[in-house]
């Protein structure tokens, strides 16, 4: 059977009319044209100009690794400073005189060589040696030679044996940068030498640099808190552990966890208030409960307005009244979701079956009892599942409201990103948020499945399905 025969025999199902055959093609063409315009107008093709992989990989490195700085000034070669993340407040070794011997807190990757030089060993097996008048790097991959960096007569840094310089050494007029991989970096300036040594992990996560518990590590500290002598004679080890953890000066656990709690409470209280307000109001907006059309219309429009004015604008208004803090978030969420829950619930009430209400009526119950036993049992599972659904999405919303100024973990995150230096903290907070959101998601999905059984349908479609019944 060829094409023309098919068309002849099945003329009722084979579409031959040009317009009905082509509309989908035109639709697709239209979409493609729009996408091209949008790509051009949104500057998507310029992405490679803005994206610097070097910068991004440096930031990414900072989220899961930490670095130690070793700094030597050419003018005072005796005063070597070894510090964590280059911070003035966390120096392993402050300015010290070599003749005084090793200070107590000398990191194990540093040592003093035979000529009195400071040796820094790296993970790649190489060494950087800081002498009084030169810096050498030895035993590094891709090069057999020991490279020597000195200052010339004008005070500019130069490399002594220049003939075959590896690619990972960049020499500019005022600076020599040695960076064979992301994990080690030697910078020679005309004023000073700076060595960065990266290692994996979040250092000082449990206890900060100056904490008395820091030398013990977390597991030993925990076992010490149940047995063993007091480290600080004034308080018990367990309180010390909690106190040192929460007051960690580098990670600010206390502050961050409190902010997280604020955000969770923002979502929780906002949703609860919305449920407490929206549930009764929904009855007054449903035609099978409230006979007055006037009341119903007003409530319907009220719900639409509350929902339509986005929680963003609500939070701006509340921000003026309550200032930065959880109340702003709570009320913004509560007001918006009163509208949403009220609308959804009034629709659900209107779609309940009349028979149950009639059954209750036949026993002589008054209107209130009819609604209590005829309607509420029907809509309660939907109501609870809807509330949980909104609780989950409000957790995300609370983070956003927080960043707009209401406080909580959102604001902390915004601050950490804007400083641009503490990417490990950004990572830490992102993981906390992710954990809370996933927890809320799974919990609410479980409860919803237990209540309704039909988890697969989205919020509004469940109602639509009910209406169809």
């Amino acid at each position, binding site marked *: 059977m060829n094409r023309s025969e098919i068309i002849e025999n099945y003329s009722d199902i084979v579409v031959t009319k040009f317009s009905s055959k082509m509309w989908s093609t035109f639709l697709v063409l239209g979409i493609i044209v*729009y*996408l091209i315009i*949008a*790509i051009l107008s*949104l*500057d*998507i093709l*310029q*992405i490679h100009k*803005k*994206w610097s992989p070097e*910068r*991004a990989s440096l930031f990414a490195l900072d989220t899961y690794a930490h670095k130690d700085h070793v700094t030597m000034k050419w003018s005072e070669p005796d005063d070597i400073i070894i510090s964590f993340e280059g911070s003035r407040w966390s120096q392993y070794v402050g300015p010290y005189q070599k003749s005084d011997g090793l200070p107590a807190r000398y990191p194990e990757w540093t040592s003093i060589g035979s000529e009195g030089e400071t040796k820094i060993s790296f993970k790649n097996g190489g060494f950087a040696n800081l002498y009084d008048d030169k810096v050498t790097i030895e035993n590094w991959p891709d090069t057999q030679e020991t490279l020597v960096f000195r200052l010339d007569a004008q005070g500019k840094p130069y490399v002594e044996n220049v003939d075959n310089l590896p690619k990972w050494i960049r020499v500019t007029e005022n600076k020599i940068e040695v960076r064979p991989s992301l994990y080690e970096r030697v910078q020679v300036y005309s004023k000073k030498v700076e060595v960065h040594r990266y290692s994996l992990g979040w250092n000082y996560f449990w206890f900060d640099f100056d904490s008395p518990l820091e030398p013990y590590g977390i597991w030993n500290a925990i076992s010490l808190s149940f047995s063993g002598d007091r480290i600080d004679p004034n308080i018990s080890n367990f309180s010390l552990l909690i106190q040192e953890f929460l007051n960690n000066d580098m990670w600010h656990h206390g502050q961050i966890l*409190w902010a997280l709690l*604020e955000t969770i*409470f*923002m979502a*929780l*209280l906002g949703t*609860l208030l919305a449920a407490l307000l929206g549930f009764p109001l929904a009855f007054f907006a449903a035609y099978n409960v409230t006979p007055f059309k006037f009341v119903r219309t007003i409530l319907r429009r009220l719900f639409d307005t509350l929902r*339509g*004015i*986005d929680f*963003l*604008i609500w939070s*701006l*208004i509340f921000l*003026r*009244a*309550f*200032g930065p*803090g*959880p*109340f*702003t978030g*709570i009320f913004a969420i509560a007001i918006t979701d009163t509208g949403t829950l009220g609308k959804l619930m009034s629709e659900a009430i209107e779609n309940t079956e009349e028979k149950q209400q009639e059954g209750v009526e036949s026993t002589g119950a008054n209107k209130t009892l009819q609604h209590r036993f005829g309607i509420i049992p029907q809509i309660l599972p939907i109501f609870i599942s809807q509330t949980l659904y909104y609780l989950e999405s409000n957790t*995300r919303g609370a*983070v*956003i409201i927080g*960043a*707009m100024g209401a406080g*909580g973990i959102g604001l902390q*995150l*915004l601050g950490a*990103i*804007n400083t*641009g230096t503490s990417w490990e903290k*950004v990572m830490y907070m*992102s993981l906390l*948020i*992710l954990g809370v*959101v*996933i927890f809320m*998601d799974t919990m609410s999905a479980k409860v919803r499945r237990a209540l309704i059984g039909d988890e*697969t349908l*989205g919020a*509004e*479609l469940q109602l*639509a399905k009910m209406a*169809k019944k």
Partner: protein
Amino acid sequence: MQSSLPENLIKIENNLKSLTRTRSIYSFLSIAALIAVIYSGLIVAETGNATSIWVGLPKFFDYPIDLFVGSWEYGYRWNLLLLEYLPDLISTINMALFSTAMGTLLAFFLSIFSSRNLIKSKTTVLIFRRIMDICRSFPELVIALVLLYLLGKSALPAVIAIIIHTAGALGKLFSEAIENVDKNPIEGLESCGASWFTRIRFGVVTQALPLFLTYTILRFEINIRASTILGFVGAGGIGEQLYTNIQWKYEADTIAIMFLLVSTIIALDYLSSYWRKSLIGLKS
């Protein structure tokens, strides 16, 4: 009177009483728990808040009144402001539309690979589901803030952030819709030797398309709100204008932008509920 009842009725009566008692204990406990949560939450909020609730409540209408007074003083040229900010609104809508389109496309591919009735390998399904979970759980704002820092201030980071979130959120809904389709058309296609792609095209997509479209329209509405919010942190569009005007205390401009935003959202709300109802055949 009590003693005259038969024994089994007394038993039932007692049983009922004890059941009622347990029930009321349970409801009492849950109400107590609810009150405890609200109370402790209020304490957390009260300590964390700059202004106490009792100081803040009377001031609630201050800002709206300020706004209206300011725009009243601005005079009759106020409606021209609406025109002035229209291009920003359009650029926000454009951001939302483009990222919804791209996100939907991504979500479609993700959902195919995370549907158990299309992919036999359990690990593939699991991996794609976890990818979608992570995309979905990160608030757009977090991704957008990091990208804004890396790429500089433009609409691009916001678009990428919304695409990622949309792909995760829609992907989950899509895969649920795909898993719920009727198996018979797919089996029928398979029996006449249709390839995997043909089966998806004619067996799955045809069935799930109304649901896909419904979810996409709903998402578009959400994404307009999201792109407005991301404008606040530097993605441009009407959100950024709103932020600047609030900072500068230009009441008339602020009201004009709020008016544009709210009317867009309400219009879209009505439009999308109309579309959705006609798609799932509710509209008679």
